[in-house]
């Protein structure tokens, strides 16, 4: 079992961890929505959003460095997109720069800034959500927020078996690498094809066994759980405080 990368800090016991998952999902969604809607030139707004999310990170006792490191996963996509962005409206003269042979336009840079800051802030809030909430609890929250029941069941089965299958993949990779994974590219792809095929067969057969075991224990198409998360006063305080901060920043700066 080498998957500490899943759910790593979700069992810390901070104020934020103890909140109802619904509160966290809704505030996260609202935060991302407001960030995405903010016009790019209002840089003060982005500074305040950052302050808001940073203070929640501090409150959650997550290691800030971990959050920062995780937020770098957006880099590849940003890089891919940004290759084009500076060239976006090359006709505009005002405030454009010529660096070496590239003609970088002002509006292109503005779009770049717009994307990068919004993507990064949204990423921070998503990391906060997933690092402070266990996936099982998150699913319960989503179910209470009217995600269809079958979908919730699919997701919870999936989550349960991700660990098993990821282990399987890691073992297969090790076996492959210890037998030297070299050769031509087509050979490598063929090897991966066989690995995925084997993984499929094993997963499918495991699925059949799991279903058999569940039926033997009285499964009839429904899952039942004993506890469901409660919406407490702390949730109300947090939601009101967070959302009013957000609204305040939104209204005073944007308007």
């Amino acid at each position: 079992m080498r998957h500490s990368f899943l759910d790593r800090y979700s069992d810390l016991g901070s104020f934020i961890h103890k909140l109802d998952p619904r509160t966290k999902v809704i505030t996260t969604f609202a935060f991302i929505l407001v960030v995405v809607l903010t016009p790019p030139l209002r840089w003060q707004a982005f500074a305040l959003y950052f302050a808001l999310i940073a203070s929640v990170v501090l409150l959650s006792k997550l290691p800030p460095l971990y959050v920062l490191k995780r937020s770098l996963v957006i880099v590849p996509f940003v890089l891919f997109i940004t290759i084009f962005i500076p060239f976006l409206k090359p006709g505009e003269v005002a405030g454009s720069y010529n660096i070496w042979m590239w003609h970088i336009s002002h509006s292109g840079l503005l779009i770049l800034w717009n994307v990068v800051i919004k993507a990064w802030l949204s990423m921070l809030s998503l990391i906060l959500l997933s690092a402070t909430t266990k996936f099982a609890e998150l699913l319960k929250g989503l179910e209470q927020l009217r995600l269809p029941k079958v979908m919730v069941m699919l997701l919870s089965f999936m989550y349960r078996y991700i660990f098993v299958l990821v282990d399987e993949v890691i073992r297969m990779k090790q076996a492959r690498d210890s037998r030297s994974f070299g050769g031509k590219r087509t050979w490598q792809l063929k090897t991966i094809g066989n690995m995925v095929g084997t993984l499929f067969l094993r997963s499918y057969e495991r699925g059949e066994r799991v279903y058999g075991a569940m039926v033997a224990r009285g499964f009839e198409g429904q899952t039942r759980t004993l506890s469901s998360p409660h919406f407490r006063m702390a949730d109300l305080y947090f939601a009101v405080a967070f959302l009013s901060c957000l609204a305040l920043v939104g209204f005073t700066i944007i308007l």
Partner: protein
Amino acid sequence: MHIPDGFLNIATVATTYAVSAGGVGFGLRQAREKLAEKHVPLMGIMAAFIFAAQMLNFPIVGGTSGHLIGAALAAILLGPWAAVLIMACVLIAQCLIFQDGGLLALGANVFNMGLIASFAGYYLYRLTTRLMRDDRRGKLFGSFIAAWGSVFLASIACAIELWVSGISPIKMALPAMAGWHALIGIGEGLITVGVLRLVLATRRDLVELQRI
């Protein structure tokens, strides 16, 4: 191809969310009508399978690597609606656990890699196996076309969404995304062929499962 938040404008976010939610809802209804309760655990595990299979990177050109999407594979084995549900689960988990793809962009990601990729894969497979014969060769060739086409079309949808959001001009985004994914698609295609060949050789019955 997982779009993060901040890249799409609100109109695109709302449209793709609506279409994807409708698609997943319809898929759920199809599953409820046509599948037995047995299929819920099975599909959950298939989603975990696609998730795990996406961890296997393959080299493309230079030092870059890509990974399987798996929508075409799921669609060929279990049918397009099942593939939509499976991909939606995979994408939701990737968004909420790994922040791979944004929360507001989830609708667009489910649209590209779920709806578009699954249906493109499924119908390309059907078409090829009908044009050629539905024997081993036809199936293998069909699965290559299906997997390649699913990646290619999904990347085009992705480029169009970015263009509509005003992030990049279509003249640059489309050839770059489509060209790059035409390469990745070859990898996806060859791997899918490999999977199908193995399944045909070992458990042929799994290729003739009930599909939805």
